[in-house]
Structure formats: C-alpha cells, structure tokens
C-alpha cells in the first residue's frame, strides 16, 4: 500500500538587472527578497540545525568538500503559506510548502511565481530610474550555466534505493516528452550538439551521471541526497533534480502527478515486470531531448530499441492496471488520480499523432510553435539571436513582458486562488501548523524550518516544537486549537500537555 505522496517544488529563478547587466546576482537576489519581505508584517528566520545535504541515500555521508555548497545564510524567510523564500547559489529561491496532492502542489508553485511578480514590483521602487530587477522561471542562461527546479516526494523508507533507481530511471529519462520546457539550440559541448535547433528540455544538456549526490556539477539523473526533513526511519524525501521549471499549469501538474503515481507503483512492487532498462540512460536523456519529432529510438540493455513514447505508454499501462487494485487516495484526493490518468493517455496519443495540437497544453510545444512561427514569418536563420531571445522571454515573469502569458494556454487555476495561496498554507500537511503559527504569533517565533518551529516565549530556554511527520499539524489536527489559543505560550503549553 503506498504512503501518501506529500510533495512540493523548489525553484531557483534566473535574475538580472535590466539596465545594469554587471550587477552582482547575490546582492540583487537579496534586494529582491528583502523588498518582498519588507512589505509583509513580520519576518521569521530559517533555522539550519537539521540541514544535512551531504548525507547519501546509498548509506554514507560526506563532509563538505566535493563541490557541495552549503547555504549562504544570506536572506532567509518563512512565509505564512508555509513556504521558504531565500537566496541560494546567487538565485532567488522559493520552496513551496508540503502539499497533499499534485493539484495543490501546482497551486503553491504558481503562488511562488506570484510572490516573485510582487517582489519585482516592490524592488522597482528601490532601484535607480532605468533599472529593473527581472526574474525568469527557467533553468539555463544559454551559456552553459544551469540552475534547478527540484521536486520532492515522500517515499516509504522500506523501498530499497536500488529498486527506486532501476524502476525510475526509464521514466525520468522519457518524461521530458511531456513536461520539458523546451530550449532553442544546445549547450552541450560536443559535435553532436551543433545540429540541435530546438530540444525538449532545458536541463538535459547538463546531466552526466545516472546516480549521485551532486547537484551543481556532474549532475545525476537520480539524486541521492538523503535529507528526509521528517522521521528518517519511516520516510525518504526523494529529491528530484532532473526536471525543468514549467510555466504551463498542465505541465507542472503532469510532472508532479505522473511521478507520484510511478513512485506509488514502485512502493507496491508493481513495476517489477516492466523489463525496460536503458543501455545508456545519460546518453538517452540527450538523444530524446534533441529530437522534438519524437521518432528516434534509444537502445535497451537487452538490445531492443524503443521510442520515448513507448516507454511512457508502458508506465501508463501499468498505472491503469494499478489504479484498479490500489485506488488513488494516496494522491491526496479522489479527483487528481482519474484526471491525471486520462490526461496522460490523451497527451501521449496527441504527441504520437501531431504534437502541435498540444501547443495550448505543454511548455515545449507552446515554445516550439512560437519559435517556428516567428522563424517562418520573418524568414530568419536557425541561429538568429531573436529566436534565442524568444526562448528566454517565454520565461520572463513580468506580466507585460512574458511571452508565455500571451499564449492561449489551458488553465487549471484562477488568479484569486493563487493570490490566496501566497499567504495561506495548505490545510492538509504540517505546513498548516508552520504557516498559521507564523501568521498568528510572528513575534514569538525565533526560527522555523521544515520539521520544527522554535518558539521564543520570552523566558529561557527557547522551546522547539518538532514536526517530524509531514501529515501531522494539519487543520484537522490543530485548527481548532490554533483558533482557540491567544498566545504562543498558551499554544506551547497545550501542545506539551
């Protein structure tokens, strides 16, 4: 039986100062986040005590070194929606709160975009005339520098990590045909890359290993960072670094939903007869990304060749059978599951028939149609910088400049709900407790992180309230209590009794 797929997305955004290209990205990111936080009533710092990005899921730990950068400790805030907003690796980063369903995680990812839009507007007042901070939701600067959009999923600790790797890799390598964000050209340093006019993924050019602990160099398809931010005896937090930052709501929802379904199937041993093992996963990742016609096949270990769409069909067929046995409640509600399975089938069929019919649904198709349309209309060459500019500007978050916003994409959310989610937590996870405490008692909270809150009640010592189970601290558990108490003191006493 699968455990609930608590999930969320953390995004490192691209950032520039229009009018001052030499601006320092770290101080620019700090200015942006400070501008947003200053507009909020109170601010609570992040607590780093339990961070351990050097612990490996394969069962060992490394000590700094090896290229893993620890946090910069620059600007770090917790929002009342339960999210974390901070500066990481010279980028502004928004880590969504823990969510109970793919559609809820989509909502809180979009709320992160709205936070960035508001932050840009707030920062505009702080900069000299003619300068403006601009934020991009993409993953590459087209010059070989990449930054991530990571997904996180709660996984049963009992699943052997090697099994996760074996049964996930073919899915991860091929899911880009659905959820890639698209890129003009390639940043891969090799002769094969020179013929790539357009590819499915922002990130495929940057992956070098099948499995590993790194996230900033020698990036692996499966990241082994073992930092559960919860009870490590029961849970694993699968940290997925492969994905692109999506703007299309459908793409984000499918990315989260399909991955959650595949993880549940692995937990239940439902993929053991899959019989798909790629001969060269890293090579296949690029081969597939570089072929937007989706016709090319990749080599399997048993000598067969297979198209990415066929691999996806194999996972979908298992998922359709799986739902008959196990239902869909592990996805947090009863509606996401059936809708995801239907959309998965529809999208694969359309990709096989005519991908362009999905220009209103998937990021890479929307971008490709725009780039090709512009190229044909103006009769320009493949390498024309205007096509690269369209690629970048697709991801520009300024409403008036965003090319994505001009496209007739199918929506799943409305602006009112997204706006609500910038300041209110999801009710169904511990993020509810974190966000509500912050909103109610900001002056009594010394620090917060994913699995605890530290209260400063004005008396020594500080009181740490652990939150080791992502499914406790929900509105159902503590909503009544939080509405009843009038002070943090009262709350901590009630919790302790």
């Amino acid at each position, binding site marked *: 039986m699968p455990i609930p797929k608590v999930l969320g997305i953390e995004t490192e955004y*691209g950032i520039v100062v229009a009018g001052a290209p030499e601006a320092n990205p770290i101080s620019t990111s700090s200015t942006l986040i400070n501008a947003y936080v200053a507009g909020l009533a109170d601010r609570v710092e992040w607590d780093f005590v339990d961070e351990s990005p050097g612990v490996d899921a394969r069962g060992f730990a490394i000590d700094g070194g090896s290229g893993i950068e620890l946090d910069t400790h620059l600007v770090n805030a917790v929002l009342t929606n339960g999210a974390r907003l901070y500066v990481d690796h010279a980028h502004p980063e928004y880590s969504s709160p823990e969510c109970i369903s793919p559609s809820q995680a989509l909502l809180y990812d979009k709320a992160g975009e709205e936070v960035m839009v508001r932050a840009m507007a707030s920062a505009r007042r702080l900069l000299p005339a003619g300068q403006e901070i601009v934020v991009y939701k993409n993953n590459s*600067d087209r010059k070989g520098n990449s930054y991530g959009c990571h997904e996180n999923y709660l996984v049963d600790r009992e699943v052997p990590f090697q099994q996760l790797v074996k049964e996930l890799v073919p899915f991860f390598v091929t899911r880009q045909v659905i959820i890639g964000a698209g890129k003009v050209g390639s940043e891969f340093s090799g002769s094969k890359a020179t013929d790539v006019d357009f590819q499915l993924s922002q990130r495929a050019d940057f992956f070098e290993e099948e499995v590993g602990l790194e996230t900033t160099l020698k990036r692996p398809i499966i990241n082994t960072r073992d930092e559960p931010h919860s009870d490590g005896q029961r849970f694993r937090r699968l940290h997925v670094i492969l994905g692109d930052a999506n703007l299309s709501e459908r793409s984000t929802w499918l990315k989260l939903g399909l991955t959650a379904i595949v993880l549940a199937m692995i937990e239940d041993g439902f993929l053991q007869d899959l019989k798909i093992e790629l001969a060269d996963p890293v090579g296949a990742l690029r081969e597939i990304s570089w072929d937007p016609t989706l016709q090319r096949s990749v080599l399997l270990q048993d000598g067969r060749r297979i198209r990415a769409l066929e691999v996806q069909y194999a996972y979908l067929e298992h998922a359709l059978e799986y739902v008959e046995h196990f239902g869909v409640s592990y996805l947090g*509600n009863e509606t996401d599951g059936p809708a995801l399975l239907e959309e998965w089938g529809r999208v694969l069929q359309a990709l096989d028939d005519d991908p362009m019919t999905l220009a209103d649904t998937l990021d890479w198709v929307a971008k490709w149609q725009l780039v090709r349309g512009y190229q044909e209309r103006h009769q320009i060459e493949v390498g024309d910088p205007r096509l690269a*500019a369209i690629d*970048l500007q697709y991801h520009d978050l300024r409403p008036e400049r965003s090319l994505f916003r*001009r496209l007739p994409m199918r929506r799943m959310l409305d602006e009112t709900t997204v706006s609500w989610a910038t300041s209110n937590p999801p009710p169904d996870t511990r993020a509810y407790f974190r966000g509500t405490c912050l909103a109610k008692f900001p002056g009594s909270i010394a620090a917060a992180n994913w699995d605890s809150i530290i209260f400063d009640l004005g008396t020594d010592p500080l009181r740490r309230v652990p939150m080791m189970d992502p499914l406790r601290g929900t509105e159902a558990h503590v909503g009544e209590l939080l509405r009843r108490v009038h002070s943090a003191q009262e709350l901590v006493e009630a919790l302790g009794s």
Partner: protein
Amino acid sequence: MAEREQVRKSSSTRPEVAEEEATPSAERSDQLKAELDDILDEIDEVLEDNAEEFVRNYVQKGGQ
C-alpha cells in the same frame, strides 16, 4: 482491498481539477494556428529591442 475499492468508488465533491470540453484535434490545431498568427502580429512590440545584446547579457551563476 474492499475498503480501498469503496474509497475509489465514492465520489468526491471537491472539483480540484477543472476539465474543459476538448475540441476535436484537427479543428483545435487550426484554431491554435490562427491564434498564433495574432500573437506573431504583436510579438515585436514586447520582444526585447536588441535581441543580440539581451541574449548576450543574460548571464547567470550556475546553481543546483
């Protein structure tokens, strides 16, 4: 699995995923092309003035 079967069959009232009516694909394809034409008519107004300089100046530090 009786309990799960029941859970699956009971209909939830929370419409978290709004599905709109799908149009037949050929028709939808033509519609999308027409919409694209309109967007291409206006896109130069929002595109960065100097594409070459804009692309050159877009430099990021590597992240995760």
